[in-house]
């Protein structure tokens, strides 16, 4: 398929607003994709690599702007491109507006060669780009992109620019692609859905659907060594769980990092939640699984950092291990990690996604045997018993409990009602807004991310030294705010803007937000010495003025009590 044909159809899809029409247009695109079906299936979602593949293009906006500027013609600089993107709000629009035809390629002077781009050619060059590493790789990436833009028509450039920056934004998500594969190749939606879950590659699913139909899709299974999406939980209460299921599987909730373990019978591979291979940074997990496992398996669990006494350490400690590429042995000395398996997706040739949780737990125990590696779940129907388990978990330094439906299947990558995370409620903080950032694109006229600060002790309460209160920053909040609220908050804050630098806005302390969070952590990032984990906006405390906001003292007290 020529890339121009893909771009033309992408443009048509972008122009549709009704879900049905979008689905139909994507269906037609897949039917017309020919040999490049797997690539087209990914590109239409703005994805270059399959979901199970953590390879990244690693092209940032500035690199992309440089390539656009170089292709754009005489005396256009990356800064010019950046300014236009800021104005227009869409790199695709900006790329399409430049005349990229001017630089010829050498191939167009050879024997009948042309610069026409096919989807396959674009894919080959993007893959080449992803392999560039080391000294000079940024220049090489820029030149490869420049070469692509040079060969691109305005419409091609629009989608090329968006694709490399991962901002396709034509309203096509996984659900649309699933439905379109089903419609294009005449397969039931549920079969396609299941196939996408087990392969984690909609491109491959599209190809199988086209060549082998429903039967072929049904034959697809999990592949040891290829990660699938982790099943996710949402927040919920004990009451809710017991009402719905009668009894619940209760597990300790670990404050760690989710890891999927793949053991093929001889080698162990570990994958993070975003499919990155984390085998090398976590040798003790590899060793533990090698010792315990006796058949090929895919396991789900949590990696927890522990201190010398085996007590859990905060989440950041695990992250430090995850990111470690060199001197793993030394890092291991510093922070030990442990693996807690709590689910089993595949054991000894059997895919277990559809098996009930309690059966998967049995298989998990039979695969690992070693109690130390397996999380020990309880089955309970009594709220008091569950509360006792929760207290135990908290006393042991963990986050609380998970409640799971004993009969539920494992649904990769889905956040459903069958897993509930129950955490103790934390108190909220009233914090002063001392800065903000202007939004992007559609939200360019609204303040988006808000810098929060707590009152320094010597500022005192209302009245005491209230003329010169001091505030120390503690974090930024950007989630939990509706568009309407953003407008109201922007109106409220704008009169207090002191200065602006690019999108950064300095705001005098005047407005107080009520903010929820998961945890308070020590952090060098903010001047208070603390940071909030997962802060979320709950509302404006119009009844409070900044001198009545929470003090750093209170933040410290809450942090100590965690």
């Amino acid at each position, binding site marked *: 398929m020529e890339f121009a044909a893909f771009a033309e159809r992408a443009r048509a899809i972008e122009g549709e607003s009704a879900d049905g029409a979008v689905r139909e247009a994507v269906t037609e695109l897949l039917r017309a994709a020919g040999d490049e079906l797997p690539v087209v299936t990914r590109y239409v979602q703005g994805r270059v690599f399959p979901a199970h593949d953590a390879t990244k293009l690693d092209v940032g906006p500035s690199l992309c702007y440089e390539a656009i500027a170089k292709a754009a013609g005489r*005396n256009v600089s990356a800064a010019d491109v950046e300014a236009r993107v800021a104005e227009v709000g869409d790199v695709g629009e900006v790329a399409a507006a430049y005349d990229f035809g*001017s630089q*010829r390629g050498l191939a167009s*002077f050879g024997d009948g*060669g042309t610069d026409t781009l096919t989807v396959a050619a674009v894919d080959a060059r993007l893959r080449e780009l992803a392999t560039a590493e080391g000294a000079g790789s940024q220049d*090489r990436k820029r*030149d*490869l992109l*420049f070469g692509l833009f040079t060969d691109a028509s305005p419409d091609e450039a629009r989608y090329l620019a968006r694709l490399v920056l991962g901002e396709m934004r034509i309203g096509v998500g996984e659900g649309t692609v699933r439905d379109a594969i089903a419609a294009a190749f005449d397969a039931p939606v549920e079969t396609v859905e299941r196939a996408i879950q087990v392969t984690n590659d909609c491109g491959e699913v599209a190809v199988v659907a086209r060549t082998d139909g429903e039967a072929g899709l049904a034959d697809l299974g999990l592949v040891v060594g290829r990660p699938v999406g982790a099943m996710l939980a949402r927040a919920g209460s004990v009451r809710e769980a017991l009402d719905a299921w009668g009894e619940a599987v209760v597990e300790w909730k670990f404050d760690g990092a989710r890891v999927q373990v793949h053991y093929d019978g001889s080698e162990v591979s570990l994958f993070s939640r975003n499919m990155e291979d984390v085998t090398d940074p976590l040798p003790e997990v590899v060793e533990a699984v090698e010792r315990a496992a006796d058949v090929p398996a895919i396991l789900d669990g949590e990696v927890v950092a522990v201190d010398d006494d085996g007590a859990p350490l905060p989440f950041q400690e695990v992250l430090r291990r995850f990111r470690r590429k060199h001197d793993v042995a030394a890092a291991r000395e510093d922070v030990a990690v442990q693996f807690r398996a709590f689910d089993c997706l595949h054991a000894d040739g059997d895919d277990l996604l559809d098996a009930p949780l309690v059966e998967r737990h049995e298989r998990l125990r039979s695969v690992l045997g070693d109690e130390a590696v397996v999380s020990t779940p309880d089955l309970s129907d009594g709220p008091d018993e569950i509360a006792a388990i929760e207290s135990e978990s908290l006393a042991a330094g963990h986050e609380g409990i998970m409640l799971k439906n004993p009969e539920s299947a494992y649904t990769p990558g889905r956040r459903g009602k069958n897993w509930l995370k129950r955490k103790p409620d934390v108190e909220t903080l009233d914090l002063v807004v001392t800065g903000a950032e202007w939004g992007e694109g559609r939200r360019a006229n609204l303040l988006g991310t808000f810098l929060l600060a707590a009152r320094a002790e010597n500022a005192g309460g209302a009245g005491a030294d209230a003329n010169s209160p001091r505030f120390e920053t503690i974090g930024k909040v950007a989630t939990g705010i509706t568009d309407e609220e953003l407008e109201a908050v922007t109106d409220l804050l704008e009169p207090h803007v002191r200065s602006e630098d690019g999108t950064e806005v300095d705001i005098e302390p005047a407005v107080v937000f009520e903010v929820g969070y998961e945890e308070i952590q020590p952090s060098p990032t903010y001047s208070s010495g603390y940071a909030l984990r997962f802060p979320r906006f709950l509302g404006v405390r119009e009844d409070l003025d900044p001198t009545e906001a929470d003090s750093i003292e209170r933040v410290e007290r809450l942090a100590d009590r965690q």
Partner: protein
Amino acid sequence: MFNAIVSADTLRTTLDSVSVLVDECKIHLEADGLAIQAVDPANVGMVDLSLSADAFESYEADGGVIGVNLSRLEDIAGMAEADQLVHLELDEETRKLHISIDGLEYTLALIDPDSIRQEPDLPDLDLAAEIVIEGRDIDRAVTAADMVSDHIALGVDEAGEFFYVDAEGDTDDVHLELTREDLIDLVVGPAHSLFSLDYLQDMNKAIPKDAEVTMELGEEFPVKMHFDIAEGKGSVTYLLAPRIQSD
């Protein structure tokens, strides 16, 4: 089989001529010398280099191809004084290149040649004008153009019988004329093409100031620049695709 001894100076000149365009390249180890062809990632600039066996102190090869990381090899060559000798030997078993310089031993891991970007066939171009010019004059033209623009136009005025360089900035312009007397030789013909300056700057870096460069030019066609290295025992040809003038 490849076993050769060459002066560090010649090796560095050879590598620099290629590394201005690409980071990795294939080196053909022919019986009568080395040959390298490479095209930049955007398919805009190309280099075609040959270095005769005569340029080496000793040379033995039987037609293999190796892939090398140029900056790595340049770093190693940089360890030698200009007049020191560099001994290169390919280990067929391990596919590594052993390099020794006055007691310093370096084993360089090679790159799979198939993973290196395929160069296009050298297009057969019929370019009407030929300008033979000193390397330092190209340097002067490129430096002047860079002050005002990121594009550079090269052309020949048939009536006036001179070679010219134009660069147009947003506010300032640069114009340079070189007559037959300023040049080593000039064959007049219809020629005017626009180029991205940064490619020409990169190529200029590798052109010796005292080199006699034969430049072939046409109407909106690639420019070809040819010069000798290693005292005439090697040669480099650059090819650069033009930009089409729309404004």
